């Protein structure tokens, strides 16, 4: 029997399924305030008093519904950051891109977002930052353009 020819054939594909994710009533209130008033709101657990931002419908430690909305400032502290040097299809910016965990004043945890208007060499944890809102706001997390250092 003669030897069969061989070559590594591959088949290219892409899973492209459209999605829309409903934010829910709780998250929608957060985004409406952000979009229409440039305000950041958190929500407080009635038992442990923890303030969540983005808001949650239930406290995941106490496992009870949250109710009390809390208006937060647009300032906070940079808890951690990274400078990303690679581009890809899902990062809406060109590298270097700075991600930060920003503990907004009055919240009990941090918000994941971009840090901008900054010389990368000046980045340090603990630095004070303020939200810079996008000029065109659509009711999503990019209504905050990024957080910038407070001079």
């Amino acid at each position: 029997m003669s030897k069969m020819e061989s070559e590594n054939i591959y088949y290219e594909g892409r899973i492209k399924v459209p999605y829309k994710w409903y934010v829910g009533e709780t998250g929608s209130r957060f985004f409406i305030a952000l979009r229409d008033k440039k305000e950041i709101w958190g929500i407080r657990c009635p038992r442990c008093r923890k303030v969540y931002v983005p808001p949650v419908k239930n406290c995941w430690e106490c496992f009870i519904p949250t109710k009390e909305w809390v208006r937060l400032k647009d300032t906070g502290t940079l808890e951690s950051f990274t400078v990303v040097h690679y581009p890809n299809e899902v990062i809406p910016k060109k590298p270097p891109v700075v991600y930060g965990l920003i503990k907004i004043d009055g919240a009990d945890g941090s918000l994941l977002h971009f840090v901008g208007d900054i010389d990368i060499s000046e980045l340090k944890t603990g630095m004070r930052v303020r939200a810079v809102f996008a000029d065109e706001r659509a009711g999503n997390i990019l209504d905050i353009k990024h957080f910038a250092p407070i001079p």
Partner: protein
Amino acid sequence: MGKRTAIVGFGQTYQRSSRKDVNGVELINEAVIAALADAELTIKDIDAVVIGNMDHFEGINYVDMWSVEGSGGVMKPIMKVTTGGTTGTTVAMCAYYHVASGMFDKVLAIGWEKNSESDTTGAIITAFDPIWERPNIGGAIAGLAVEASKYMDNYGITERDGARVAVRERLHALNNPYAHLHQEWMKGMEADKIVDLLVTSEQNQMLAYPLRMSDMCPRTDGAAAVIFASEDIAEKIAPIPAWVISTANRHNYVYLGDINWDANDTLEAASRKVFEKAGVKEPLKEIDICEIYLPYSYAGLKWMESIGFCGPGQGPRLVWDGVTDMDGELPVNPSGGVMSSNPIGATALLRVGEAAWQIMGKAGPRQVKKDVNLALATGFGGCNWADVMLLGKKRPS
């Protein structure tokens, strides 16, 4: 030897076409809270969590991780299992094995879906082999239509026979406040008359012969949660727990093209195994109610034969004789079944939860009017994945 295991709680959201008011995590939370309330437990009582859905139906990778804050899994052991349409029963079986292993006493099983947010058919197409079958197979309906027409040809089955199953499911759903489809217009009408309407109405669109719109399951947003507990505490939690008597599954096909269209042989093999382990010899006589995963009407004929409730080609007689109606010898799908609510990742878990509630006597307006000692639940999924679980009132020996 493993621990005997029982279902002690079941909860679900109302099954609806679209839940715009909540996101996925919040939807899951509703079902979990409902199940905990049903068992009169708190999340602190839960030792481990099992969850499942299909990644591309929601566009979320690692759903178990993403949903942990709603599912109650924070600082608990959590595991994701997923097998397609069967996911709900696969989750139930996984929770069962968690408890039966002796490693956990109280385990929460969760299934969920927000069908309204994605193109489910687009996602289902990606279940097929990208090289050999994806370019030429069109989602779930086509395969089911092939099965139905083959079955019709084999046994002289008519479109009226298929429609009769659809009518049963929709009439039963009228008793279930949680069901997605409530076809109020059918209320009080003779089954026969509704069948005539369904097979002649031009409004009842033909999707892929012989399947009309009324032969198919809907797309639903919803979640379900079931709590499993060990023999040590099940009776302390629930006055009448629903014991897992036996469970088995089979999945023998990779390619749709390989499926034996003459018989649902994976469901047949899994059922045989379950009955063998439980000592059930005459399923029709011994089993009191069924919650069978019937994604479309003709399955309610052919798959009854596969499970062993009747011989080949005899499914229609069983259904026309009223045996599977609410007041029949073997009520099938008192909940209205998959054809009335289909939140895919939760669908098969709903079968388990509904079957358990029939045993526990908690099914309210859809509770069958007879003593329920044995209840059967099944799941069906991609390339004839078949899960079967038999529940009983009597604690297994």
